[in-house]
C-alpha cells in the first residue's frame, strides 16, 4: 500500500512538473501572414542589417521518432519482433507531432514499456559481445550474478547511457537516484536490490539501469 501511494504520488508529480516545466511558446504550426513584396518599391537591402534573435523551443520525440531514436542512441542493431510489435501496438500513445502539450502519463507509460523492450534487446546484443565492443555495458560481467555488480560498474553503465542518450554526463543527484534505485534504500534494508548468482538476474539488472535512463524526459526530448 505504501509503495502504491508512492507510485501514485510520483505519477502526480510527473504530471505537475510536466505542466509547469515546459515552455509552450511558439505553438507548432502557427505562422504569420504570407505576404511578399514583389514590386519595385521593395527594399531588400534591409536583410543585411537583420539581427538574428535566437529562440529556443521544446519538443518531445513523436511517434515516428521514438523507437528510431532509442535505436540510434543505444547503438542497437538487432531489434526483436516483440519490440517492433510493442511499438506498433503503442504507437497511438506516443506524441503525434512532438508538442509539449502532448506529454502525459499514458505517453510515459508507453515509452517506459518500449524502453524496457529496447534495453532487453540491447542487453541480449551486448552480452554476446566482448567488453571492448560494447557501447553501454562494457563494465558488466554477464557470466556472473548481480551480486557481483558494484557501484563502479553501475556508474559506468550510467555514464555510458547518459552520454549516449542524454548527450551529457549524469549529475551527482542523478547518479545518487540511480544508485538508490539499483542498490535499494538502506532505510528499507535494501530489500529490493538485485542479488544472487543468477545470470538472468544480471541481465534484468542491466535492463533496469538502461530502461530507467532511456525512458526519461532527457532521452525523449527533441
Amino acid at each position, binding site marked *: 500500500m505504501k*509503495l502504491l501511494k*508512492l*507510485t501514485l504520488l*510520483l505519477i502526480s508529480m510527473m504530471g505537475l*512538473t510536466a505542466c509547469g*516545466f515546459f515552455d509552450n511558446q*511558439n*505553438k*507548432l504550426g502557427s*505562422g*504569420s501572414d*504570407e*505576404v*511578399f513584396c*514583389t514590386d519595385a518599391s521593395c527594399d*531588400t537591402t534591409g*536583410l543585411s542589417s*537583420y539581427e*538574428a*534573435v*535566437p*529562440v*529556443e*523551443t521544446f*519538443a518531445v*520525440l*513523436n*511517434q*515516428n*521518432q521514438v523507437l*528510431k*531514436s532509442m*535505436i*540510434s*542512441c543505444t*547503438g542497437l542493431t538487432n531489434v526483436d519482433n516483440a519490440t517492433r510489435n510493442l511499438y506498433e501496438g503503442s504507437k497511438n500513445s506516443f506524441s*503525434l*507531432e*512532438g508538442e509539449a502539450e502532448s506529454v502525459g502519463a499514458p505517453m510515459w507509460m508507453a515509452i517506459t514499456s518500449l524502453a524496457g523492450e529496447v534495453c532487453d534487446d540491447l542487453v541480449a546484443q551486448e552480452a554476446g559481445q566482448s567488453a571492448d565492443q560494447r557501447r553501454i555495458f562494457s563494465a558488466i560481467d554477464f557470466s556472473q550474478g548481480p551480486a557481483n555488480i558494484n557501484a563502479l560498474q553501475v556508474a559506468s553503465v550510467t555514464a555510458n547511457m547518459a*552520454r*549516449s*542518450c542524454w*548527450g*551529457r*554526463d*549524469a*549529475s*551527482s*543527484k*542523478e547518479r545518487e*537516484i*540511480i544508485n*538508490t*534505485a539499483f542498490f535499494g534504500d538502506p532505510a528499507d534494508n535494501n530489500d*529490493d536490490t538485485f542479488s544472487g548468482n543468477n545470470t538472468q538476474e544480471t541481465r534484468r539488472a542491466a535492463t533496469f539501469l538502461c530502461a530507467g*535512463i532511456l*525512458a*526519461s*524526459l*532527457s532521452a525523449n526530448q527533441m
Partner: protein
Amino acid sequence: MVTVTTRITKQTRRFAYFASLLAIFSMIGFSPASAQTDAEKHALAMYRRVAGVRISLDDPKISQMASLISQGQFENAAAIPTADVNFYGITVKEFAAKMSNRELTVSAPLTDFVATVIGITRDGVDAREMLTGDFYYAGDSGQINNLPMDEVDDFLKSNAHYEAVEASNQELVDVLVRVDGQKLVGADAQSAIPHRDPAGVITSRSFMAAHAIDGTNRRLVEYSMKSFACMEITEWADTSVADVFVGRDVDRFPEGSNNRFQATCKGCHASMDSMRPAFAMVDFDTEYLKYAGVQNGVNIELRNDPDNDVVDEDEIAVDSQGVPFKFTRATDTFPEGYIVASNEWTNLATTRKHEKLFGWRSATSGVGMGDFGKMVSESKGFSACMVKRAFESVCKRGFNSDEDALKELLTTKFEQDYDFKNLFISVAARPECLGM
C-alpha cells in the same frame, strides 16, 4: 510463510521498478548537469532536429560538428546529420507526409507522394519538379524480397507496393529508385499506359485518391494551394474577383438572396472555380484514377436517372462534353453558370492581393494539370511554403510575426538552387531556429 514472503518481495520489486523509473522521469528531467561544451550542446541539438533522432555525445560526428560550429561554419555542421538515414526516414518523410493527405498529418503511411519527395531530396532534384515532373520513386525489388511490383494492381489500383516497402523496415534512402514516366490505368482496366498529363506529386495516386474522389474536383485546387503554397482558402478568398467561371452547381441566391452569394460564396468560388478545369479530365473512382478519353466514357446525361453515375470498372462517367460527370452535378441550380468543357483554365486569383500572397511568376493560364503545377511551383508562394514547412519541422515552431526578414532571407536562399536538402541545412544553421 517463505512462499508468502517471496511473493511479496516480487510484487514490491515490481512496484519499486516502476517507482524508480518514474522517480527518474520526474527528477532527472529538470536537473541537468553537463560536462559538454556549448559547441557540443549546439551540435547535439542540431543533429537531433535535422536527423530526427538522438545521438551519442561521443559519436565522432558530434565532435566534428562542434569543431565546425566553433569556427562559425554552421551550414557545414548542419550538413553532417543529413547523411543520417533517419534524415530521410523521419524528417523528410514527415515533411512530405504533411503535404500528402487530407488531414495534413505526419501520421500517414508511405505512399508514392512521400517516396517521391524523399527521392527528390536525396537526389538533389529541382524542388519545382515536385509539381511538374513525369516521374516517381519506388522501392527497389533488387533490395526488398517479394516486393509487389505489378504496375496496375500494386501501384495504380492500391498502395500495396509502398506498404510493402515500409513493412520491410529497410532504410528508405537506400531502397528508393527513380522511375521515369508516370502511368495511368488503361482502357481495359488491366494495363498501364503513359500518363497523359503528369504533374509530379499532384498526379500521384495518393494525392488523387485524397482529393479527386467524389466531389467536384474543387478540392484539388483547394488542397494544392494548402499543401504547396500554405494558403488556406479563407486567406485567398476575394469577392472582387469576377464570377465568370463559377459553376452551375453554385447557388447564386442562397437563402433567397444574391447578396449572400456576392458577400461570401463568390469569394472562394470565383478564384477556385477558375482553376478547377485544370482537373477536368480526372476522377478517382473504384480505387484508381480514371482519365476522360482513356476509359470508355458513359454519358450519364443520356440516362433517365441523372443521379445514377455508377459505371463499370473500365468505364468513366462523363457528361455530354466528355468531361467527368462530377463537373455536371446539380447543374439545374444555376443553369447560366460556367460549363466546364475542357481542361483549359485561367487563374483569376491574380488581383493585387493575390499577387502579394502567391507571387505568381509564370503563366496564369494553361491546359491541364501540368501547366497548373508549373504555375504553382514557380510562384514565390511555393518557395515560401517549403521554407515554412522546413522551418516548422526543424525549429519546432512557426515563424513569429517579427521574422518576415528571416523568412524572406531563407526563401531567397532556397530559390538559388531549389534543393530541399540545402533548405533544411540553411534552416538548421540559423540561430533563431535552435536558440543558440
